């Protein structure tokens, strides 16, 4: 080892350390502050109705809006999550229910309130068909997950010595859903749960892009499912909004 060299010239590897540390700290702070999901849940139950043994629920997407529609995989996520576990609720497959009740649950014919549901059930054969499915509660999902903002940028380049990317990109998704529960036996609106989950994802690129993705839709699915389970199994709703964030 040459002591002179050591005192006057720093190793190139060493000289990179503070820069790397600073970069990592900067990236870390950006990630800590930027990536995450904020949530708001507002459940409101109006009746004491609970699901009985042998009774089923069906989860349906509201499809009459021109601008949005609850995604098919979100409906599936809620249906699967409700049915999961030892105390899972019996969930009737959505497509099968729509087929059995055709043409009464198409976008243009589906009842928009419990009054219209009553009129529909008065039609010949309709109530009997609903009874044959075993469905007591209809869960209407209305809303969607949308990208509300995005920014930044990543530049990639390749050369003889290798390839790499540099930059920072971010985007923000907002998952807003209402789950409205109708009781077919009582012809009443059991209540509504409003869920608003917002998540910002970031992707810094220092040679390799590293995605830190927030999943507000998945969290909205989990949050809504927990509330729906309480809704359907606990007699009284508290009617108060709770923040799960």
């Amino acid at each position, binding site marked *: 080892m040459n002591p002179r060299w050591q005192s006057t010239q720093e190793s190139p590897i060493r000289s990179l350390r503070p820069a790397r540390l600073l970069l990592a700290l900067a990236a870390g702070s950006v990630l800590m502050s930027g990536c995450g999901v904020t949530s708001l849940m507002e459940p409101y139950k109006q009746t004491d109705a609970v699901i009985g043994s042998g009774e089923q629920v069906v989860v349906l997407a509201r499809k009459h809006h021109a601008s*949005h*529609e609850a*995604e*098919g995989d979100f409906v599936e996520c809620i249906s699967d999550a409700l049915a999961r576990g030892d105390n899972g609720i019996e969930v009737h497959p959505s497509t099968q229910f729509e*087929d*059995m*009740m*055709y*043409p*009464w649950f*198409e*976008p*243009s*014919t589906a009842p928009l309130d419990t009054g219209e549901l009553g009129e529909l059930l008065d039609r*010949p*054969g*309709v109530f009997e*068909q609903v009874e044959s499915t075993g469905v007591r509660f209809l869960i209407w999902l209305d809303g969607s997950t949308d*990208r509300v903002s995005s920014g930044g940028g990543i530049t990639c380049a390749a050369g003889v010595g290798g390839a790499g990317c540099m930059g920072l990109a971010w985007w923000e998704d907002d998952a807003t859903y209402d789950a409205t529960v109708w009781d077919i036996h009582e012809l009443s609106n059991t209540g509504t749960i409003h869920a608003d989950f917002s998540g910002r994802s970031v992707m810094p690129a220092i040679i390799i892009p590293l995605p830190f993705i927030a999943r507000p839709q998945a969290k909205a699915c989990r949050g809504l499912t927990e509330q729906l389970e309480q809704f359907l199994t606990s007699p009284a709703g508290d009617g108060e909004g709770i923040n799960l964030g």
Partner: protein
Amino acid sequence: MRNRNVKSSVLKLAAAAGCGLLVGCSSSVVVLSDFPTPLIEPLPVRMGVIYDAELYDFVHAEQIPQQSIWTIQLGDANIAMLEPLFDAMFLETREVEDLPVGPVDIASLDGVIHPVLQRFEFDVPIGQRDEFVEVWMQYGLSLYEPDGQFVVEWTVSGYGKSELTRNREQSVERAAIVAMREVGAAISTQFAEQADVAYWLEERQNESALAVDSRIAN
């Protein structure tokens, strides 16, 4: 000689690229689905139905600017949607070839329906912000007496949308199925409510009642 080989290779490359472009720029969709039987009360009439070749073999071809040439085959789906629909809507249905119907059918049918797919429109968005593929279609239902006398034509339309996925063809197919289900829903719930159709149905019921009365009198 070497120059000729290079030229040949360039030509082959261009041809391959051209083929690739052509294949990449055409999208083909065959709409296939089972349509449910509607949950409705049948109307008290026996109907003949004309499914003509245009309906059986319906293909929509369209070049969308900045995209590709789309061919959408709807023939099988037309029949899959209309057959169970008419079977549930009427007391009895029978396929007939043409108008006027034959002597056997003229005595046993109350009327004849001739469905035609008049218009098919669709939109596949380019921008990332547009989330849905949309389909709009319009059918014309012509109602005739069995002897070929025209009664009324009713146009009925349906709109369907489907989430735009990476598989654009599948999204178009889904949107088309939603639109066709909408058409089926409209036909099954609104056909008898059309003023001219309601009047025609009333006449048929009066004729039936008169026929029963005359049989009792004899």
